[in-house]
Structures are given as structure tokens and as C-alpha cells.
């Protein structure tokens, strides 16, 4: 069971843990990304996430398939939230469950890094002074 989704509602990570549960798994690992209150010294009040949702979903699904091939992870889920998030809100959750711990720990790291590098998702940060900025927008090509 692998599942990837872009969601517009708060992420229920406990439900995701239940989703990957399987009697053959002895290890479950999870990563949660949350909105931080500062970015490069600027005070952040919130982030507006947007996505090319169909492609982000297919890209994240492909990444889960790669994690299965590399680490043998048969039970994994990823959700990335879009919309307006406040400081402390969960923007991404990755959960993987495997028979032993090494595979799920390594798989979660791989899934998070690949998603950040490849999924077409963007964030518009809002700062306390009222300004806003697309994160990474000045970096040109990937």
C-alpha cells in the first residue's frame, strides 16, 4: 500500500500511521514538516502553499515507488498540504512502515528529500512587515 496526496485540509498524521500499519511491520517512521517562524532572519506570519496538484500527486507517487524499489518499503504514505498555513501548522507528512527500522528510517529521508526537490509545489511566505515572497523564486533553474 502506497499513497500520495495533495490535501487542502489539516493533515491527520495519526490516521496515516494507522494506514501503513501491517502485522508484518516492526518499525514505523514519520517525518512532519511545519511552518517555521523565521526565514533568513525575517519574521514569518504564515505560508501560502500552492501546487500543480495532478503532477505533484503523480511525482510523489513515483517517489514512493522508487522508495519501494530501493528500500523494500511496501507501506508508505505522503500528504502535502496546500492553502494558507499558520506558523506551526503541518505542511507535509511522510510515514513508512517496514519489518525492520533501517529501511523505514532511510526511506522517509529519501521520500522527503526527493519530494522537496521534485514535486511542483511552491510557497509564498508572508512576513510580519506585510511583505510576501516566493521562496526560491530567485534561484532560476533548478
Amino acid at each position, binding site marked *: 500500500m502506497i499513497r500520495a496526496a495533495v490535501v487542502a485540509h489539516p493533515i491527520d498524521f495519526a490516521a496515516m500511521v494507522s494506514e501503513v500499519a501491517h502485522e508484518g511491520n516492526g518499525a514505523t517512521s514519520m517525518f512532519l514538516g511545519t511552518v517555521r517562524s523565521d526565514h533568513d532572519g525575517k519574521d514569518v506570519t504564515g505560508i501560502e502553499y500552492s501546487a500543480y496538484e495532478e503532477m505533484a500527486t503523480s511525482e510523489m507517487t513515483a517517489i514512493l515507488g522508487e522508495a519501494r524499489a530501493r528500500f523494500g518499503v511496501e507501506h508508505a504514505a505522503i500528504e502535502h498540504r496546500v492553502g494558507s498555513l499558520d506558523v506551526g501548522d503541518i505542511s*507535509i507528512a511522510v510515514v513508512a512502515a517496514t519489518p525492520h527500522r533501517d529501511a523505514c528510517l532511510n526511506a522517509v529521508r529519501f521520500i522527503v528529500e526527493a519530494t522537496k526537490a521534485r514535486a511542483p509545489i511552491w510557497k509564498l511566505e508572508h512576513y510580519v512587515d506585510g511583505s510576501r515572497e516566493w521562496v526560491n523564486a530567485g534561484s532560476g533553474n*533548478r
Partner: protein
Amino acid sequence: MTVTVLLFASYADLLGRTTLGLDLPAGATVEHVLSEVRLLPGASLLPPSPLVAVNRSYALRTTMLSEGDEVALIPPVAGG
């Protein structure tokens, strides 16, 4: 042939739109789309080689297009 171009995030802000339709000659590639997009007001601030996806998969500038394709210009991603 007609293709649909999708713009997101900072690129949508630069060009003041999220979508446009383009009529292209048969045999056109992603490069043709980029050339057309560069004629739009605001396009001078696009990077020299923006990432592009065709039908929801990353593509090359030389990728050939077909009638009805969905071509997306992908700004630097920042998920997580």
C-alpha cells in the same frame, strides 16, 4: 495544433495569468512554447531555461508536442 500552457506561482505573477492557449505548427517542441511565452509582457524576468513539464512529466526543450498537450512552466520548487 493547439496546446495549453500552465503557469504557476512566481511565473503566474510575472505574466499576470495562469493559463494560455497557443496555436503551434505541427512538429513544434517545448522550445517553441518558450519562444511564444517570452513575447508576453513580463516574460523578460523568466530565467533562461525554466523547467518544463509536458502532460505532468518533466520534459526537455527538444520534447515534441502533440495536439492537446498540457505544457507547464515549473518555477523553482519549494515544497516541504
